[in-house]
């Protein structure tokens, strides 16, 4: 950093006032990102609402159809099936991530060398691409001969097909999603646990509180901001996360019998396999609106994105 004192005369080299110069600089600094976000995120969000009112074919011919896509949606059993699968996926994923993330964090909470290694091992799956994750798990559960498929008779499950049976495929997809995401949630919880002052625990020990009482009366209440954040983002991940798309796309393609067809997969198929861009946009617009509502809620409840406990 240069600390040499320059002649003061250089300061007034512009006819603009200092305030105006700050304005212009501010706008110019924000411009590239603001423009990019507008074109590649804001516009698509808006467009999904507009496109939903059109019939768009694969070649880009548009025809205004009003609410036709939305009425079609209401009568489309596959849309309702996908909505149901999405809800089931979220209902399983959100609590599982909460419990697994928090349990792992408590397990390795103390900072030492051993826990450092264990933490890295729990987080390692998150470093691998979802495509590889999906491929590896698909290999582990190949019917009858996959390593995990061989274990099922021993567990009394009688050679189930993890991906081929509509009753099990969604569970398999949820399990793989949890495996991929839990290390990430563990880290978020570790960050939250770190913020709880140790003196609370010390005071509780003096009062003769056991480990369960400490967890129940100190850890959980003081973890509220973290819990809130975790539930929020895991809900978003469940409904619209790329882990849901990538894992399902590679492992099952939405099948068998549409049992793993979450909305984002169904939307993608409608658009890119059947060229029904308008219909796909109409379905996506429902997701956009619900995500916006969730973001608004989050913004209000956290006073502008402050998650830390103050």
């Amino acid at each position, binding site marked *: 950093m240069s600390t040499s004192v320059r002649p003061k005369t250089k300061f007034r080299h512009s006819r603009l006032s200092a305030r105006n110069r700050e*304005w212009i600089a*501010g706008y110019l600094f924000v411009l590239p990102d603001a423009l990019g976000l507008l074109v590649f995120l804001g516009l698509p969000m808006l467009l999904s609402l507009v496109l939903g009112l059109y019939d768009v074919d694969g070649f880009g011919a548009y025809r205004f159809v009003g609410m036709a896509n939305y009425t079609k949606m209401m009568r489309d059993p596959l849309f309702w099936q996908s909505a149901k699968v999405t809800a089931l996926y979220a209902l399983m994923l959100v609590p599982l991530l909460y419990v697994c993330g928090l349990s792992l964090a408590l397990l390795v909470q103390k900072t030492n060398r051993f826990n450092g290694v264990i933490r890295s091992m729990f987080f390692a799956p998150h470093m691998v691409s979802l495509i590889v994750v999906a491929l590896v798990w698909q290999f582990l559960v190949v019917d009858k001969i996959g390593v995990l498929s061989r274990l099922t008779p021993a567990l009394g499950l009688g050679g189930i097909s993890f991906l081929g049976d509509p009753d099990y495929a969604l569970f398999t997809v949820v399990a793989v999603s949890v495996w991929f995401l839990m290390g990430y949630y563990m880290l978020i919880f570790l960050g939250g646990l770190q913020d709880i002052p140790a003196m609370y625990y010390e005071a509780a020990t003096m009062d003769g509180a056991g480990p369960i009482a400490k967890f129940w009366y100190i850890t959980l209440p003081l973890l509220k901001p973290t819990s809130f954040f975790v539930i929020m983002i895991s809900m978003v991940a469940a409904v619209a996360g790329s882990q849901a798309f990538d894992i399902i796309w590679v492992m099952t393609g939405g099948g068998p019998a549409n049992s793993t067809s979450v909305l984002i997969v169904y939307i993608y198929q409608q658009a890119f396999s059947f060229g029904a861009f308008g219909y796909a946009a109409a379905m996506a617009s429902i997701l956009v609106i619900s995500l916006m509502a969730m973001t608004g809620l989050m913004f209000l409840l956290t006073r502008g994105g402050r998650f830390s406990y103050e």
Partner: protein
Amino acid sequence: MSKPSLYFSNSQVTAVRLIWMTVAAILALMTVFPLLWMVSIAFKGAQESFSPALLPSAPTWSNFVYVLTEVPFIRYMLNSLFVSVTVTVVALFFHSMAGYALARLRFPGRELIFLAIFSTLLVSLPVVIVPLFIIVRAMGMLNTYGGIIIPSIFNAFGIFLLRQYYLSLPREIEEAAVMDGAGYWRIYWSVILPLSKPILSALAILFFLANWNAFLWPLTVASDQKFWVVQVGIANFKSEYSAAWNYMLAASTIVAIPTLVLFLVFQRQIMDSIKTSGLK
């Protein structure tokens, strides 16, 4: 290990700690087991793919050789590298500029702009992919590097984190430069950027990883094999060689290794940045 336990009294500690560590170790091994298995199969011959032994009886490089020679895998890797590095560099540049202005400069509409950026925070790619595809197609960017790269640059997360970071810097730091008569660009370039090194390097790792691992957008925007990134290549590989698991897992290993090596080297930074950001 001398620190007293938060949950247990001293007399409970020794016994509990042993059980605790055993449980942790077993769970951690179970967690990494699929990855170890992947590497093991990559070194096994085709007839051994489903043998229950973790170690290959006759380790071989032939699967890797096959994947690298019979499939344009090197090309896919170079495409991925080019896309990931470009997105990371440009994104960090733009986001630090925007973050600096939103944190430090006063101009009308600043809060509104921040709010607008914040509102896109949770909107993920799968949700907007249909209209995004239509926009990029209208711009004539299908099957181009620009089409893969440019839309991947912009995300609110990086701006948000950098803004938080700049808000936490003491104002006195810039004052010397202001007294010096430096313009805002010079302050940004020679004061703010050098101070951002820790957060920029943490974000650089996260951005690189996210883009190296990205699948959905490259799959959608580039159908021409010339532009395939490695994730698209491997997913396509699967549909062609669906039963040749030894090749598929060798390919998976090649794809996973750069990120796992990056993780081994930077594990502290990666995990700390996620832990403290509380955001991905």
